[in-house]
């Protein structure tokens, strides 16, 4: 409107136009390597009773489980990324995942799992379409619409499960679950997998950790996991290397500008949100058809939300998102694999990280922040020293606490698409 003459807050004085350091692949690898070394050292130092717990941190089983936990979270996050890059917040991911689990299993048990995959993706996409209609066409607040979709998706699948699956009791159906769906093929890299397993079992310093890490990534990998990894790469390519992606992202940064250049903003927003739903649906399919072989009420267990958190953590970029999803998947997997001891071992690792952070902060003369980090590190070390395991009933808290911690540390450095979560009406830009 007339009062906002120039939308140019910009050019603060003395501005250094250099970009700050972005996490490059090299830095990430360096961090991983550093962590591994630290881990190996800690393990070597730890007493005999604790060693197996430390070994568990990088066991191929743990890594494999983490990967399969990470994929649905990552797919949900990827869905969130598509939508938010086009300026639409999608908190309805959870509902779209539910649709994915339901329709994936429904079509899957009747035909074959790949048809199920397609149906689940479509189911999620329909959820996305509803969200697009509400937010883009009708301008409903994105969060409110998302919440409504979550309620609706849950209600609808529960009802349909009751109608469709209950009568199938003799082949395993019930009001809360579908009949079994066949396995989706999974792959193991022949030779490599076994070789790595052998190395891992020797518990050599550092080498075994690395072997465990890699072993988890080459053993018993579902075809759908591979598809998901391709989708991550594909997303990066499409959104950042094609004109379609440029236009789509422009709708999340400045839709009025995009409109003024002839971009059909509604169309791109619709496309993004529908794709977003489809990806979340695929995440649901993964839960239904790979992690288990059935639809199961409540199966998603809030992964849609965690996916959203992973996306924020990843700063609205696929690479960062993958790291976030990996982190959540990892901490999720912990609790399933005799987590108490492993989490206990991890306490020490986290304490080390915090201590380093504290040092850095103090060096930068940020005394309060440094003291807080240092104090936290100390508490963790004490906790580690005074106990020998973390109560199993508290282990499930790990992913949530990790999320809160990570968000608390990182949220301020994040940059979301500028027009994200803002209403947009065609022809009403200033």
């Amino acid at each position, binding site marked *: 409107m007339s009062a906002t003459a120039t939308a140019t807050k910009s050019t603060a004085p003395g501005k250094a136009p250099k970009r700050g350091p972005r996490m490059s692949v090299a830095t990430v690898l360096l961090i991983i390597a550093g962590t591994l070394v630290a881990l190996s050292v800690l393990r070597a130092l730890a007493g005999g009773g604790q060693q197996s717990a430390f070994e568990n941190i990088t066991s191929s089983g743990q890594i494999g489980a983490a990967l399969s936990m990470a994929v649905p979270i990552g797919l949900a996050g990827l869905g969130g990324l598509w939508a938010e890059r086009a300026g639409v917040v999608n908190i309805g991911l959870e509902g779209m995942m539910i649709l994915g689990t339901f329709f994936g299993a429904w079509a899957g048990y009747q035909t074959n799992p790949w048809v199920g995959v397609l149906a689940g993706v479509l189911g999620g996409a329909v959820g996305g379409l509803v969200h697009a209609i509400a937010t883009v066409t009708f301008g409903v607040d994105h969060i409110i619409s998302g919440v409504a979709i979550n309620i609706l998706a849950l209600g609808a699948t529960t009802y349909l499960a*009751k109608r469709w699956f209950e009568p199938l009791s003799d082949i395993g159906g019930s009001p809360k679950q579908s009949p079994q769906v066949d396995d989706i093929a999974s792959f193991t890299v022949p030779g490599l997998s076994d070789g790595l397993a052998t190395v891992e079992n020797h518990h050599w310093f550092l080498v075994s950790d690395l072997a465990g890490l890699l072993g988890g990534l080459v053993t018993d990998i579902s075809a759908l996991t591979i598809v998901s990894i391709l989708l991550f790469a594909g997303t990066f390519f499409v959104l950042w290397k094609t004109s379609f992606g440029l236009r789509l992202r422009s709708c999340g940064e400045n839709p009025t500008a995009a409109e003024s250049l002839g971009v059909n903003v509604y169309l791109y927003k619709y496309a993004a949100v529908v794709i977003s739903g489809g990806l979340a649906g695929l995440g649901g399919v993964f839960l239904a058809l790979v992690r288990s072989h059935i639809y199961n009420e409540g199966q998603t267990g809030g992964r849609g939300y965690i996916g959203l958190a992973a996306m924020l953590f990843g700063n609205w970029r696929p690479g960062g998102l993958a790291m976030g999803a990996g982190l959540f998947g990892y901490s999720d997997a912990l609790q399933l694999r005799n987590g108490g001891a492993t989490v206990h071992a991890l306490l020490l690792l986290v304490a080390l990280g915090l201590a380093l952070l504290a040092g850095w902060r103090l060096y930068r003369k940020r005394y309060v922040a440094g003291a807080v980090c240092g104090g936290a590190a100390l508490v963790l070390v004490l906790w580690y020293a005074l106990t020998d395991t973390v109560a199993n009933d508290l282990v499930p808290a790990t992913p949530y606490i990790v999320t809160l911690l990570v968000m608390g540390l990182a949220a301020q450095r994040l940059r979301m698409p500028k027009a994200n979560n803002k209403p947009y009406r065609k022809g009403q830009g200033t």
Partner: protein
Amino acid sequence: MKKFDKERVLLAVAAPLLALVAAFLLTALVLAATGKAPFNAFGIMFDYGVKADSQVYILNKATTYYLAGLAVAIGFRMNLFNIGVDGQYRLAAFFAAVVGGALELPGLVQIPLIILVAMLVGAMWASIAGLLKVYRGVSEVISTIMLNSLSGILISYLLVDGRLADLDKQTNIVATDPLPSSSHFFTIPAGGDLDPVFGFIVVAALAGVGFWFLLGRTRFGFDLRAVGRSESAAQASGVDVKRMVLTSMLLSGGMAGLIGMPTLLNDTHQFTSDFPAGIGFTGIAIALLGRNNPVGIALAAVLWGFLERGANRLEFEGYDKEIVGVMQGVIVLCVVIAYELVRRYGLKRQQQRVGAELAAQARKSEKKKEVAV
């Protein structure tokens, strides 16, 4: 300005009605598509819903839902999405039950104490999200969702035989110590052999009045609403937005603390693992439906209670009670769309009227205006 007001009232009523009608039609379609007679189903729900014992049930349910709606609405009024009401009220009810079970004071002292503990715990839990938002910029949507899960884990860690609860070997139920009977809240007899109405409905009504008064009649409420309408304008007007976020998170959490109280003080008198869950989410739907307005929320809470009562009956009559879930989802979605449409229409109407009236004024006072300029 009476003309405007009348139209505004009309629009305010039109939106939910429109949405409800649309929702019922859509649900009817779903029912018909899955081979069930829709209108018969609605008939069953209605017949059953107006029975005396159903009304007691609905009022008692609505009491809880009303508080949940209020708790959510406090946040919504200032554009704060407290998705965490769910975790807040459960944690609050749990600790209130623990404290209540451990003490044996006169009811007049102990009941307020229990309520206070609940509100404090709810507020503290909510404040975590508030602090994270204010100081670390963490979206409250994400943090409250995480906190919901954490509160569940915390409760189940503590709700264990030997920690803060006891196991009844006969019934297999693990529960906190029951409240002494002096701490049972009064009930309102409903006549006949009907169950009584929860006395806590009085507290809920007071909470509603308090909500209205605080938001509509105090400086604080004005500031809070100002933040909801425009954070930047509120800040420029002198509202400390950060503090406001914290305060309203605390208020919302405190109100959330009340949600479990009708159940605890009027009904179960102890906390068990199947203490009602998910009411925080129901509260979101109810706040949306009631438009964050204390009267609207009351109507929405009653509607929700009615639907659930009807669901119980539908099953008995051979329908799938799950259809009510569809109905609820469709209602919420229709309602949010209808409100947005009506809001937009209302704004446009008003601009049109302002334009028209000004044009008329201008024509009348053509000459006077020239002098004035």
